[in-house]
């Protein structure tokens, strides 16, 4: 059950959203942008947050867009992970998003909400860390575009009153070889011990990781080791794990040592899949 008082606003333009948000903030209501709402509701019932108002961005047309436009694909931040998998414009994003939470929850969880999540996982961000994507950001001046890599550094870096409107990427990425693996303690539906999305362009394997450390990451050094084609898969995998610049976490899902073990055999099989054709 919930604590009382949480006003609800559903603007229909970006500026209306930001203006409303600013006004609520100024009036001391501690507002939050509301997308799927799953995280806000779960944190609120545990009294971790007390948003006095939410600004639902799903009524804004740009937030709900989901289309292939010329050379690009555009994914609105308010699109559900279920819808992403249904339309399947970008197979790597489908594969990754389709393992977040459970099927019914994915009808509600949105791309933007997952990427902006306070939890350490944010699995739907992994494919975006491997490509040159453009982010549409909702600001007081309307929509601005920024390179996604400037916006995401383990977590989404936005001004308090800004929000993610959409992500845009070239259609070319949809044809890269890819694979995505989510490894859990035991269950199909669970937070990841490690979740890895990987692609291969010409000679380089790119991999992004969630669950392994306190936030999602990728690293050139890891990609270099993974791509050393003359070495056996297992050796590359072992070296790649050694090259991970983050500390593996230990928690109820698994110990740091076990996370490394799992990451290693998973990487070996990812390389095998990505190079399998050769």
């Amino acid at each position, binding site marked *: 059950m919930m604590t009382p008082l949480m006003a609800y606003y559903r603007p229909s333009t970006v500026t209306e959203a930001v203006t409303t948000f600013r006004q609520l903030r100024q009036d001391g209501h501690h507002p939050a942008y509301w997308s799927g709402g799953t995280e806000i509701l*779960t944190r609120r019932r545990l009294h971790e947050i007390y948003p006095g108002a939410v600004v639902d961005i799903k009524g804004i047309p740009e937030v709900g867009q989901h289309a292939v436009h010329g050379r690009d694909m555009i994914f609105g931040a308010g699109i559900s992970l279920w819808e992403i998998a249904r339309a399947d414009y970008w197979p790597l994003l489908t594969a990754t998003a389709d393992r977040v939470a459970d*099927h019914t929850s994915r009808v509600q969880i949105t791309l933007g909400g997952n990427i902006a999540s306070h939890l350490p996982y944010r699995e739907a961000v992994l494919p975006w860390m491997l490509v040159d994507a453009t982010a549409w950001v909702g600001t007081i001046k309307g929509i601005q575009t920024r390179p996604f890599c400037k916006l995401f550094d383990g977590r989404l870096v936005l001004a308090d009153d800004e929000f993610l409107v959409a992500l845009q990427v070239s259609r070319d990425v949809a044809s890269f070889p890819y694979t995505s693996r989510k490894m859990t303690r035991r269950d199909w539906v669970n937070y990841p011990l490690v979740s890895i999305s990987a692609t291969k362009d010409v000679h380089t394997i790119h991999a992004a990781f969630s669950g392994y450390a306190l936030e999602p990451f990728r690293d050139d050094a890891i990609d270099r080791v993974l791509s050393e084609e003359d070495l056996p898969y297992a050796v590359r995998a072992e070296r790649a794990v050694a090259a991970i610049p983050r500390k593996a976490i230990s928690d109820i899902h698994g110990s740091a040592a076990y996370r490394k073990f799992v990451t290693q055999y998973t990487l070996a099989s990812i390389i095998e899949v990505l190079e399998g054709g050769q």
Partner: protein
Amino acid sequence: MKSITGAYEGVFHINGQTRRMVVFPQDTLLSLLRGHAVSLSGAKPGCENGDCGACTVVLDGLPVKSCMKLAVESEDTAITTVEGLYDTEVPKQFLDKWAFQCGYCTSGFILVAYAMLLNTSRVNDAIITEWLRSNVCRCTGYQEIHEAVWAAANARGNGT
């Protein structure tokens, strides 16, 4: 802009009926359905945290955990609860296949199965598993539920 800062009279379409009801912005769809005005207690609270699926209802043809949805967000959508599936195939098969014991999880499973059949012209084991593992049952062995869903799929021809 829709802005709701207190008691609000909304229009809800539940099981084919349109109702005007007063809700508060923080009310979940689950509490709206189970509250005195509607009294559709087929949707059950099992965790109110999105984890168990006992509260699942179908909104515009898709399954949704009603504990994770605000009532005000569900205005202008077609809401189907287990009570709305009275005398239909899925509950009938749950009965035939003994796919329940305590029955507390049952409406959630039935609604997910119903939504799956709406959205999938031809189901297979993998699809059934993927849709239904959103829910938890503590009494059955799951096989009974799996069989009931298969039987419901076959009853409508399963894509043939």
